[in-house]
């Protein structure tokens, strides 16, 4: 079973899965702080890739990726400041619908300013390939895996062990009580949008060398990652990692062994299955209420 093709598919799947996991964390953070599903998450991924593609003509790839991530973080913060903050006391459904508008507007602004052509650039180590146990693996896949692991560790440390992370969790768990001890709910929502955009933007910047990116590729990536978030348990950080990696491997192996034609449906079939069988996801707590 441990042949070269299997290893190749496994590593490629883990790479894609790492991307899904990062985007899924973004979904989770905003879901926790507002209760809404953020449709703009996928657009931020797309922006990460396209911004980096613009910057890459002026600087090395790693700098372009960092700059793009910073720019997308700013976009996330601005999205909250301009669109969400005035409406933050509305019901989660309203915010979800508003984020639909935000996504469409963001996408069309990118299309109008950066054009419709797909963009790409070399990976962090150029187009180098490695041989692992007889399988050819892109250096960029290893970069993605490494960045995912480091980012997840940092995220864990941030939310579990730092003052700001704890405050953010408190504000999400109980806004009124958190406000009483001096944590601003408004600030927490702003931080969650900036953070979610950071994860999305970084994911977009490092996946673009593998797949190319165009103004309309955000939604697909975003909603596959959303399926991953649901698979792991919406709102659960470790669930996002688990769901992302599982989904990535599943999708790639079905694409490799069974059918490439229906590969794009796998994530959504998983979404329907998990909603039917276990709507709180693998790691989520079963606090889903039945009518």
């Amino acid at each position, binding site marked *: 079973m441990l042949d070269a093709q299997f290893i190749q598919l496994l590593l490629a799947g883990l790479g894609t899965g790492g991307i899904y996991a990062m985007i899924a964390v973004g979904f989770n953070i905003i879901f926790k702080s507002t209760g809404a599903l953020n449709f703009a998450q996928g657009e931020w991924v797309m922006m990460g890739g396209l911004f980096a593609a613009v910057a890459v003509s002026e600087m090395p790839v790693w700098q372009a990726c960092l700059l793009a991530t910073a720019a997308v973080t700013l976009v996330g913060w601005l999205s909250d400041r301009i669109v969400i903050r005035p409406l933050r006391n509305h019901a989660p*459904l*309203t915010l*979800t619908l508003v984020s639909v*508008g*935000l996504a*469409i507007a963001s996408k069309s602004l990118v*299309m109008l300013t950066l054009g419709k052509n797909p963009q790409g650039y070399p990976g962090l180590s150029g187009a180098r390939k490695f041989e692992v146990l007889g399988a050819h693996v892109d250096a960029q896949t290893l970069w993605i895996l490494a960045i995912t692991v480091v980012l997840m560790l940092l995220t864990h440390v941030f939310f579990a062990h730092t003052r700001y992370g704890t405050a953010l969790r408190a504000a999400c768990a109980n806004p009124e009580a958190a406000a009483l001890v001096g944590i601003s709910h408004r600030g927490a929502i702003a931080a969650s949008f900036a953070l979610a955009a950071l994860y999305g933007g970084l994911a977009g910047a490092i996946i673009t060398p593998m797949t190319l990116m165009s103004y309309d590729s955000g939604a697909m990536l975003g909603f596959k990652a959303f399926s991953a978030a649901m698979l792991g348990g919406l709102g659960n950080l470790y669930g996002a990692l688990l769901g992302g990696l599982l989904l990535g491997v599943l999708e790639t192996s079905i694409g490799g062994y069974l059918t490439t034609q*229906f590969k794009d449906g796998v994530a*959504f079939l998983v979404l329907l299955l998990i909603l039917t069988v276990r709507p709180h996801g693998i790691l989520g707590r079963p606090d*889903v209420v039945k009518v």
Partner: protein
Amino acid sequence: MGYWAVPMLSKFKGRSKTPAVARSAGASLRVLGLTWLILAVWPLLAPNDYLVSLGGTFFINLLLVLSLNLLVGYAGQVSLAHAGFFGLGAYTSGVLSASLGWSPWAGLAAAPVLCALVALFVGIPTLRLRGHYLAMATLGLNAILSVLFVGLVGITGGPNGLIGVPSFTLAGWDLGVPAAFFFLAWTVAGLAMLGLRNLVQARAGRGLRALAASDIAAACMGVPVLRYKLTVFALSAALAGVAGSLYVHQNNYASPETFSFFNSVLLLVMAAIGGLGRYWGGFLGALLFTALPELMRSIHDAELLVFGVAMIVVVGYLPAGLAGLLDNRIKRRGGQP
């Protein structure tokens, strides 16, 4: 308490004879009949066949936005698969008539049945849960349907689309002629508007509104929450299926990108801009959806930006949409002598 209630009640009674729901829905039979009569003049006024067939397209869009408005506005549940149901209806009807040689009329009957069945299949597990699980599931459903439309090349024609779909015929009459198709779509859409009017004014319609406001409160008042939600979702999907069948026999063609997830999102935007839970919301949303691309032909790329910004503004600041604006206007004018 009774002391206060009596004068308030009499004051309320003095104002109007019709129940409050009927008034707020703005669903007057006279206005509806008059509007439909005026619309019937369109094929005579339109200077060319293209604009006549655009009229037919308007009624198809009306069915789509109206069915979504029924689900989101009246039952408080979001479907992100309406373009998918539209496509399912189109491919069902199209394949039955183009490949199997069935009459388009049989397709028009089969399309809503299949859409309703698929809706039940997705709705039964997810509508039981409180929260927006239907939105999540339908998001997946539309993506799966899109993959199937493209992937099942042998049945759907794949990325090249389904070709050679016949038009409707009635007693030797070709309803593929734009003006004839216009009246077919005019009739179907008119029946749907009439049906919506009857539904929202009936006991079931009040139950639905209660359910959209709070399903706990509705359940306490004896509204069968799950059954209502399922029925409305299936009905809404079936209407989208009817729209699909009309579409495929109007254009004699179907292509997968018409039924993409993104178009489901656009339909939701149109339902919101038109006015969620407002009787004329679907009508106004469909009008905008049909007319705006034509009006913005020269600045086509900016269209999406307009839709996006309009969605934010309407959902955030004008939750009753265009229909709400119109309502207020009419009320203000009606209040003055």
